[in-house]
């Protein structure tokens, strides 16, 4: 077994709405994942470095730094560029600059579908 491999996988939830953060954290915890969260892109970057999550869920519309910018910064970091990202947003269309997200979910989303995708991606 690789040294330092985590037993429980960790998911970073990025959303500026505290109710939605609570929702997502509850879904992930119920399914046996660890969680951490951030309320905007800049904060997410700090949490990312500290917590080294296995997967990220990303909202697009956030104050200070919005999703696409966070995504661009993430893609430029060799250590994190392969971390899978699931976009969960109220916007119907895909943002041109986040082409590499593993999937796009539109709010309101189906929790079963979300968990299915997460399990397929990180186990």
């Amino acid at each position: 077994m690789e040294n330092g491999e985590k037993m429980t996988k960790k998911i970073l939830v990025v959303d500026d709405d505290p109710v939605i953060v609570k929702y997502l954290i509850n879904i992930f915890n119920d399914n046996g994942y660890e969680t951490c969260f951030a309320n905007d892109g800049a904060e997410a970057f700090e949490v990312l470095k500290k917590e080294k999550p296995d997967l990220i869920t990303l909202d697009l519309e956030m104050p200070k730094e919005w999703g696409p910018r966070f995504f661009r910064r993430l893609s430029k970091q060799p250590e994190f560029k392969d971390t899978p990202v699931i976009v969960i947003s109220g916007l119907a269309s895909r943002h041109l600059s986040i082409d590499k997200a593993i999937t796009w979910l539109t709010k309101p989303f189906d929790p079963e579908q979300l968990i299915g995708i997460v399990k397929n991606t990180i186990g």
Partner: protein
Amino acid sequence: MAQDLDINEILLVDDEEDIRDVLAIALTDLGYRVTMAENGLEAIKAFETHPFSMVLTDIKMPVMDGIELLKKIKHLSPGTEIIMITGHGDMDLAIESFRNQAVEFITKPVDVNTLETAINRAKEKIGLKRKLADYTQNLERLVQKKTDELKSVREISAIMDTLPMVIFCVNPKLRLTSCNTFFKEQFGDHPGVFCHRICKGKEIPCEACPALKSFISKQSEQAEITYTTRDHREISFLAWASPVVEPDDTVSEVMVMAIDVSRVVDIEDHLKSLGLMIGSVSHGIKGLLTGLDGGLYVLDSALKKQDQDQAQEGLEMMKLMTSKIRKMILDILFYTKKREFIKENLAATQFAKEIIRTVKPKIQAANLTLTLNLPQEEIKFTADPDPLNSAIINIFDNAIDACVENRERFPSKQDQIITFTVRRINHEIEFAISDTGIGMTAQETKQAFTLFHSGKGKKGTGLGLFIADKVIAQHQGTIDVTSEPNKGTRFSICLPLV
């Protein structure tokens, strides 16, 4: 002039290379020839060598931003239509864009269908304007012909007087030389006075002055311009200026003909704000529905685990979301419904007590103090009680939020007070709501009543104060706000007593 420009050419301005490339591909697929610029300054350079009938520009760019570019292009070529692009939620920028005559506003991420619709609307507007210009030119020719015919017998003024439009002539110094009856009715008779003085009350010529342009170009020029009438009404006019060219090729006078288009502008504004609202609201509603799902999920999962605390949390999430959705829907209904005002004779004390009955539970739940200053002697006034009541309650809601936020931010400020004052000031009745809450900066105070400006971030729809302002205006009253950050806010509503 914009009339001769190719309608299938677009100038695309965005500072982000990847977005620019993808948009250019999309536009090319739609059959347009695209010229690209990285910022406003580059765009102006490109525009000066080769004007375009349509410009698609990002708002937030370095060097020269989209709003500045919009103003410059509208100045260079009023017939050019400009579509603005920006991130979601920038409603202030959207409104600023429309004030500066942007034709459309689309949000990032840009969806190809939305883009196509926006371009088609811009095209439609260009087409309409060209038709209007053709019509005007015919009118000009007709007037010219009539002028020639009648000049010798000095009957031109008779014709001008019968036309239901503002017509006036100015000399090269922009002083009024003659005008028709309609002009006199709107602005008074002021021979020899500067036209900008008469029509705008300004000491310098208007920014888009078509007469000035016409003196220089010796051609007809057109502009959309707002004039202030002598009874202080602001009216939007579509104005054409035609030069009177003398045999020695000098321009002795310019004749300006202007048609009142304020109703068209009003309708256009209303449609635009409605469209904007639906866009911003549908995005908000998706968030609220997700929150509602969230509450339901947390509650459901708590029941399975028999976790009482989590169940309570889920219930609170649902209650919060339900009340937000309810408020949003009520706001929308109020805004979209055109309703008649039914004024009633009211007694101030009873009216105030009804408001207090509604707001008191909320104030107590938030653990705030409510101080009342009700009049000793009864004040009778007339108003439509329902909308006035909800306008005042909206202000109370803001006061409560402001107090709670101040307390959360500064633990030392636990004692938060809301004061409700009803009193008579000369011939007016004043309802004042002051709080010791978080307060607003000068900029926030200025924007408080604009549509979709929410001082509460995602918590508000940005409609509450806008509606309050509208209601008070319909009562011929005034609403004023004074505020200081971390000190508090005071809203004062004054209604006439007669």
